[in-house]
């Protein structure tokens, strides 16, 4: 897990404050990289600074809503112009940034390859940008928080928000990972490898992530069926948790040829309703059991995770 602080050379003290806040509100063990850029950034600033500016532009562009691609040209106010990142590719638009306005763009903070904090003045930083409509996405839509870096309370609040956003995003990713891999408990080892996050960080979020699963119980209430005969089965689904689940999509799978197709139903668990029933037909092939599998899916906006498939054994008699 890494963070990058893009800051001007004159912003050393501010960068130190941001670093300390990130360790407090994001994670103590985060790997921190300070990427300094000259206040009078120009074509002679060296390849290292050009590379830092290229990285900044890549992350900045990803945090924006914009009509097309653009390059930034830095002006020194004496008629000289330098492409930020030392070169222009085929970007159709060009934004001008005066060296005197560099502090409207920096410092900027990226965490895990995502721009998370930008100065609140960034909207006024570029000249001649009227013909190029753009804005920074909000933080909950993969965008950035806009902070007033002259106000320490605003900086602290922005870093705190960034920490919260990361926790929420990682919990969502963990929820999705559990669903796709169909696992009952978070696999921090695999998730950590996939996201490039140390398991130690994920462990600190375990309570939040593990509390996301919902507790549904299943039982076949219709009794045993006979092998080779078609019979109706009643499956009762009970919800014993406190969370109001709303609509839950349920799918029942059976071995090949036992059902004509998987059973799909939508069950409503609103208010005090605790139990719902689904009925379907099966034609089991062999004794003593017919293994069934129940999956349910919730609207992903809900604060609970979809558990792994639940195996159920249907008793089969000769």
């Amino acid at each position, binding site marked *: 897990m890494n963070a990058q602080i893009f800051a001007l050379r004159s912003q050393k003290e501010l960068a130190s404050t941001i670093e300390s806040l990130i360790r407090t509100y994001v994670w103590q063990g985060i790997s921190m990289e300070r990427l300094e850029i000259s206040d009078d950034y120009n074509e002679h600033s060296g390849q290292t600074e050009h590379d830092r500016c290229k990285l900044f532009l890549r992350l900045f562009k990803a945090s924006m809503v914009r009509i097309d691609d653009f390059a930034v040209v830095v002006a020194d106010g004496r008629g000289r112009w330098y492409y930020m990142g030392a070169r222009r590719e085929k970007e159709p638009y060009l934004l001008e940034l005066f060296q005197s306005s560099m502090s409207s763009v920096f410092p900027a903070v990226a965490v895990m390859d995502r721009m998370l904090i930008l100065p609140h003045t960034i909207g006024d930083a570029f000249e001649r940008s009227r013909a190029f409509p753009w804005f920074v996405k909000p933080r909950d839509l993969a965008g950035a928080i806009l902070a007033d870096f002259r106000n320490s309370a605003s900086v602290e609040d922005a870093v705190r928000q960034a920490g919260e956003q990361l926790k929420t995003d990682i919990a969502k990713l963990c929820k999705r990972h559990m669903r796709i891999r169909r696992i009952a408990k978070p696999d921090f080892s695999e998730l950590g490898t996939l996201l490039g996050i140390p398991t130690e960080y994920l462990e600190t979020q375990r309570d939040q992530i593990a509390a996301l699963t919902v507790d549904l119980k299943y039982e076949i209430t219709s009794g045993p069926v006979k092998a080779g005969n078609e019979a109706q089965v009643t499956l009762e689904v009970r919800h014993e948790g406190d969370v109001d689940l709303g609509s839950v999509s349920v799918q029942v799978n059976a*071995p090949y040829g036992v059902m004509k197709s998987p059973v799909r139903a939508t069950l409503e668990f609103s208010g005090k309703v605790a139990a719902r029933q689904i009925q379907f037909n099966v034609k089991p092939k062999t*004794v*003593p059991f017919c*293994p069934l599998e129940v999956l349910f899916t919730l609207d992903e906006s809900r604060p609970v995770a979809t558990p792994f498939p639940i195996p159920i054994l249907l008793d089969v008699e000769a």
Partner: protein
Amino acid sequence: MDFLDRTRHEDLAKFYQDARIVVVPSVFEPFGMVALEAMACGRPVVASRTGGLKELVQHGETGYLCQPKDHLDLAQWLMALLADESLRNRMGQTGLARVRSGGFTWDEIAGEMMDIYVEAITNYEVREKPAEASKFIDQVLQQAPPKDEYDWRSLLHDLFDKGGKR
């Protein structure tokens, strides 16, 4: 769950005999030597209905066949066998008998292979070169580099018509 390391071939029989059931859940299997070895050790086999396994395992006789990638289908046949020792023994013995009588020894396989070669040689026919083949050969020769043209000409005429013009 034990994941065995590479195992010597002469030790395999012991592993098969230690198992109550041998499962071959392949998604694709050209022949299915594992299933055959298990049957030779008197063990019932639950295998995917794919490739050579479909021919080797007789559903309901020497084991069970399940749909590839259908874990529920696999589970139901495993549970059926795990719950019935006499069924396991009967299927294991039927499998062993099938291996012994089914033409699976090296001598028998070599004999069958020989028959295929003999039939191919005996029934070999020289066919007239069709008009489309001539056109195709001309097109290929036009594309071939000059120094390779002779090799291509000879190869293509041999393929289509041994007695054709060179």
